[in-house]
C-alpha cells in the first residue's frame, strides 16, 4: 500500500488500482470541528485536481481536490451522520472517497510521508 500527499493536504492510499482519499491530520487540525461533508456521486470521473467533495468546519467550507484522476467507486456514507469522524481519525475512518485510478503514474507528482511532513513544518 502506497500513501501519498498533496500540497492541498489530501492523502491518497493506493491498494491495487483503487486509491482511498481523505484530508490529512494536519488539515483537520487547521479546520477545527467538521460539521458537514459533501461527497460526489459514485460513477463520476474526476481529473487530477478536480473538486471531489467539500468539507465544512464551523467556520468555513473547503474543497477537497482529487490527488489523481479516476472514477469514484465508493464514498464514505458514514460521514453524513458523523462528520466529526474526520477530526477523530482523518487518515483512517474519516476517509472521503475511493477512486479507480486512470493513471497511476500521476502518483509520482505527489509527496511521500517524509516530504509532506517537512512541507507542513515549513507552513507553521
Amino acid at each position, binding site marked *: 500500500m502506497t500513501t501519498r500527499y498533496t500540497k*492541498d*493536504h*489530501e492523502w491518497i492510499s493506493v491498494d491495487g488500482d483503487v486509491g482511498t482519499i481523505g*484530508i490529512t491530520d*494536519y*488539515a483537520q487540525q*487547521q*479546520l*477545527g*470541528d467538521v*460539521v*458537514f461533508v*459533501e461527497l460526489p456521486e459514485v460513477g463520476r470521473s474526476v481529473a487530477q485536481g478536480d473538486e471531489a467533495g*467539500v*468539507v*465544512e*468546519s*464551523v*467556520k*468555513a*467550507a*473547503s*474543497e*477537497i*481536490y482529487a490527488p489523481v484522476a479516476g472514477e469514484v467507486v465508493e464514498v464514505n456514507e458514514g460521514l*453524513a451522520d458523523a462528520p466529526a469522524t474526520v477530526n477523530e481519525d482523518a487518515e483512517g475512518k474519516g476517509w472521503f472517497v475511493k477512486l479507480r485510478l486512470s493513471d497511476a503514474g500521476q502518483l509520482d507528482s505527489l509527496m511521500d510521508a517524509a516530504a509532506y511532513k517537512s512541507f507542513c513544518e515549513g*507552513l*507553521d
Partner: protein
Amino acid sequence: MTVDNAVSELLQTPLHNRHLAAGGRMVPFAGYSMPVQYAGGILAEHKWTRQSAGLFDVSHMGQAWLDGPDHATTAAALERLVPGEIAGLDPGATRYTQLLTDEGGIIDDLMVTRPLAAADDGRLFLVVNASRKDVDYDHIEANLPDGVSLEPVEDRALVALQGPKAEEVMRRHCAEAAELSFMTAIPAKFDGFGVQVSRSGYTGEDGFEISVPLADAAHLWDALAVEPEVEAVGLGARDTLRLEAGLCLYGHDIDETTSPVEASLAWSIGKRRRDQGGFPGFERIRGELTDGPSRRRVGIRPDGRAPAREGTDISVAGSPVGKVTSGGFGPSVGGPVAMGYVEREFVAPGTELVLSVRGRAEAAHVAKLPFVPHGYKR
C-alpha cells in the same frame, strides 16, 4: 483544501499572552490578533458557554466616553446621531442603538451606558465594534456641538463572562454585580480593584461585560479563568453563539446599506424618537415603520444538513428574493442556521425558501429568531 497561515502586522490585546498560554489559535480580526478558538475547539467552547460560563477577551472593541456638562446636553448630542432613547436613560442603564447615515443606513451598532454615579453626570460610556472604531470616532467628533467631546479609552481592557453560571462565578469576586438586571451597569470592586460591570453580552446568555484598567486585566482574567465553571472561549464560538441568538454582526448582517427597520431592529428605536425624529434618516425610517420595509432580516433554517454561508442566494419559485448575511452550523441547534434579508412578502415564519448552495437548490424556511431562547436576567 487550502490552508491560509498569513499573518501581518496586528495589534495585540493586553491579554495576548494569556491566549497563547491557553493554546489560543490566533487569527487576524479587525486589525487585532485574536483567538478564534482555544484547545477545546469551537463546538466545545460554544456548548460550554450555553451550559456553564465562557470567558471572552473583547478588548479589541472600542470603549469611549462622551463628555458634556450635564446628561440632557450630552444625551441630546448623541441623539442627533442615533435613533435610540438616550435622554430617558436612567443612571446605570445601558441601551443598544445604532449610528446612522443621513440615509438611515447603519454606520455601526453600539452600547450606550449612562453611569450610575452622580459625579459622572453628563457622561455617556460607549462600546463600539473594533472594525468600526476609527469610522465611528471620526463621525461622532465631526458632529458634536461645542461643549461635548469624545474621549476614546485606550487604557482599559474589556472582558465578557457569559453563560448560565456566570452569576454564581461573579458573586465570588464582585457580589454587587450579581444583583444587576439585564442592561444595567455599576462601578464595582472585583477582588478589591475597581471595574465597570454591565449585565449584557453577545451570546444570548445571561452574563457580564467587565471594563477593567489595563494594569488589572490579567488578574481579572486569571481570577475568572481558574474558576471550575469557566473556560476561555474564542471568536469562533462567539460568532456561533450570537448567530443562534439572532444578534447582528456588523459588516455582515448590517452595514451602511441597511436601515434598523430592515435589520429587524425597530424594537431599539425609542417611542419618542419615532414620533419626534431628530436623527439621521428619519424620513426613511418613519416610512419603513409605517408601511413596512421593502426587505427585512429574518432567521433561516435550511431543511437539510448543508450550511448556507454568507452570500448564498435566496429564491422563491425561481425568482431571487434575497441573500444570506450570516450562516453556518448552530452547535446548540444541532444543524445549519442562517440569517439574511428577504423581500417583504416572504418574511413570515414558515415561508418556504430555496437556497443556492454551490449551485444546488437546497430547501429552507423562514424561522423565528432567536434560534435558541435568550437566557437574559430581566
